[in-house]
C-alpha cells in the first residue's frame, strides 16, 4: 500500500501546501467575480434611482399634478401645464398598432421558416433576419425620411388634414416600428418554435395529421408561451425606440386637436421618446424633471413588460 510509505507521506504534505495556496487564489477569484456580477444589479438600481428620484421631483411642483391626466404639455406658459398623457398615448398607440401588424406576419414567417421552408430559403433568410435584429435604428429612420415619408406624403395626402405634412406622424412611426420590431419577433418566435421538441411533431404526424394540422394544433399551442414572450419583447423594443421614430414624427408637444380620427396618423404627432429627444437637453426645472419622469415612465413600462414575459415564460411547458 503506497500511501503508508514515508515517501508518500512527504509528497502528501507538499500536496496539501500547494492546495492551500491555490485555494486562496480560488477565494480571491471568487470575490472579484462576485463584485462584477453584483455590478449588474447596481447599474439597474442606479437607473431606477436616478431616473425615479429626478423624475418624481417634478411633482414638488403643484402644476405637475395633471401629469397622467392631461394632454396639455406647456411648460413655457405663464401658468405652466405638465400633462404628459399625449406623449404616453403616442407611444402606446404606435406600439400597439405595430404589434398588431407584426404579430401575424412574424408568426407566419417563423412557422414557414421553421416548419416548411426548404434549406436554401432558411440559408438566405435566417442571416438576413439576424442582421435586421441588430439593424441600427438610424438607418431605418434615414430610409423612413428619404423613402417612406415622401411616399406617404403622396399616398396619404387625400385623407390627411394637411397635404404637406401627410407623410409624418403616427402612421410613418408605426410602419417604422414594424420594420424595427418584425425581425426580433420573427427570430424569437423561431426560437420558441424550435424549442418545441421533435417528439411533439412526431406524435402529431404519427396520428395521421397533415403538416398544417400539426402546426396549428400541436406546435402553436405548445409554443404559445414562447410566442407570447416574443410579442412582449417586440413591444418592449417598440415602446423604447427613439431615433428612427423621432425622425418621422416631427410633432411638438401637442396632440392634434379634436376628436380622434384617422388623420392623427398622417400629421405631425408626438410620443414619449421624441419628446425626450427634442426637449430634454434644453429643459430646466420642473420641465427637465418632467422629461426624466417620462424616461422613468418608459422604464416602468419596459420593466412591466419584462415581468410579464418572465411570468409567461415561467408558465411555458418547454424552455
Amino acid at each position: 500500500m503506497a500511501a503508508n510509505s514515508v515517501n508518500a507521506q512527504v509528497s502528501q504534505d507538499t500536496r496539501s501546501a500547494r492546495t492551500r495556496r491555490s485555494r486562496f487564489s480560488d477565494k480571491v477569484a471568487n470575490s472579484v467575480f462576485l463584485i462584477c456580477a453584483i455590478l449588474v444589479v447596481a447599474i439597474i438600481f442606479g437607473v431606477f434611482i436616478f431616473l425615479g428620484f429626478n423624475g418624481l421631483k417634478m411633482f414638488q411642483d403643484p402644476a405637475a399634478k395633471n401629469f397622467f391626466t392631461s394632454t396639455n404639455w406647456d411648460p413655457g406658459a405663464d401658468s405652466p401645464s405638465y400633462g404628459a398623457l399625449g406623449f404616453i398615448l403616442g407611444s402606446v398607440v404606435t406600439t400597439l398598432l405595430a404589434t398588431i401588424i407584426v404579430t401575424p406576419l412574424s408568426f407566419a414567417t417563423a412557422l414557414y421558416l421553421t416548419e416548411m421552408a426548404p434549406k436554401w430559403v432558411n440559408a438566405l433568410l435566417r442571416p438576413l433576419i439576424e442582421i435586421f435584429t441588430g439593424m441600427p435604428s438610424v438607418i431605418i429612420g434615414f430610409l423612413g425620411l428619404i423613402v417612406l415619408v415622401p411616399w406617404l406624403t403622396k399616398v396619404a395626402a387625400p385623407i390627411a388634414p394637411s397635404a404637406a405634412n401627410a407623410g409624418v406622424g403616427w402612421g410613418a412611426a408605426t410602419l417604422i416600428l414594424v420594420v424595427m420590431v418584425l425581425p426580433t419577433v420573427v427570430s424569437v418566435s423561431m426560437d420558441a418554435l424550435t424549442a418545441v421538441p421533435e417528439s411533439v411533431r412526431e406524435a402529431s404526424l404519427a396520428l395521421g395529421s397533415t403538416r398544417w394540422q400539426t402546426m396549428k394544433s400541436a406546435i402553436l399551442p405548445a409554443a404559445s408561451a414562447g410566442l407570447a414572450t416574443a410579442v412582449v419583447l417586440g413591444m418592449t423594443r417598440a415602446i423604447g425606440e427613439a431615433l428612427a421614430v423621432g425622425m418621422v414624427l416631427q410633432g411638438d408637444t401637442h396632440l392634434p386637436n379634436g376628436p380622434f380620427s384617422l388623420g392623427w396618423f398622417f400629421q405631425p404627432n408626438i410620443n414619449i421618446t421624441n419628446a425626450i429627444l427634442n426637449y430634454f437637453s434644453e429643459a430646466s426645472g420642473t420641465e427637465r424633471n418632467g422629461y426624466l419622469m417620462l424616461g422613468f415612465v418608459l422604464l416602468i413600462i419596459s420593466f412591466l413588460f419584462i415581468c410579464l414575459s418572465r411570468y409567461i415564460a415561467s408558465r411555458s411547458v418547454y424552455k
Partner: protein
Amino acid sequence: MPLVSEAARHMGEFDPTKTLNTSAGTKVDVRHTNFFYGSKQALYDVSLPLRERQVTALIGPSGCGKSTFLRTLNRMNDLIPNTRIEGEALFDNFNIYDKKTDVVLLRQRIGMVFQRPNPFPKSIFENVAYGLKVQGKSQKFIQERVETSLRGAALWDEVKDRLNTSALGLSGGQQQRLCIARALAVEPEVLLMDEPCSALDPIATLKIEELITDLVKDYTIVIVTHNMQQAARVSHFTGFFLSGKLIEVAPTANLFERPRQKETEDYISGRFG
C-alpha cells in the same frame, strides 16, 4: 429455456405461447429493405412478415437498426433529411415505401407509440381527441371514442375524474398509456411501439405489458425492446437485429431456446450488448 419459462411463470395469466398462431396472415410484408442515412447504410436487406393480430418483438444491441426499421413502417423516417429506402413493404396491396403512398393516410392506419411518452401539453381529453379532431369527427363521436380508447388503454379509471387537467401531470406510466390510448383512438390496424417501457418503472412496465397482451386481440403489434425478458413475456414472434441485419426471426420461444444463429445465441446469453 430458462428465460422464457421464467418470464411465463412470472407473468402467469398472459402467456403469449398460448395465443401464438404460426399460421396467422401477414399484415405487412417487408421484403429486401435497405435503408440509408445519407451515405450510411442502417438496414441491410431486411425481410420480415408482420403477422396479423400477433406481437412481433424486435431485439438487438443498441444502434442495430431496430428503431430505424420500425420507423420505415409508417414512413416516420421521411422527417429525416437525406434518407433513402429500397425494397418494399406490402400493406393492403400497396407498397408503403412508394413515393406516391399517402403518408397521412398510412399513419392513420399504422399507429405508433414512442420510446419516451410524448403527450401534447394539453388536457388528457384533448390528447386522446387529437387524432379524431384531425379527422374532423363530431363532438359526440369524439366524446365516446375518448372513453373507449382510455378504457382500452386501461387508463380510464385512473383519469376519468380529471380529463380536463394537463396530461403532463400524469406519471410516466400513465403518460405512456395515454399515448397508447391516443394511438388507439383513431383505430389503426397496426400499432408500432418503440421501447415503450424503457422510461418506465417496473410496475408501470407490467401494466403496459398486460395491455399489449390485451390489445393484440384486435391489433397487429410490433414492439422494439432492449429487454429480452420483455420480448419473451409479450411477443409471439421475435426478430433479432445486429448491425442493420435481421439475423433471425422465429416464434419467440424457439428463438430464445433454440437459436439457429451463433450471433443470436451469443446475444441472448449476454455475451455482448
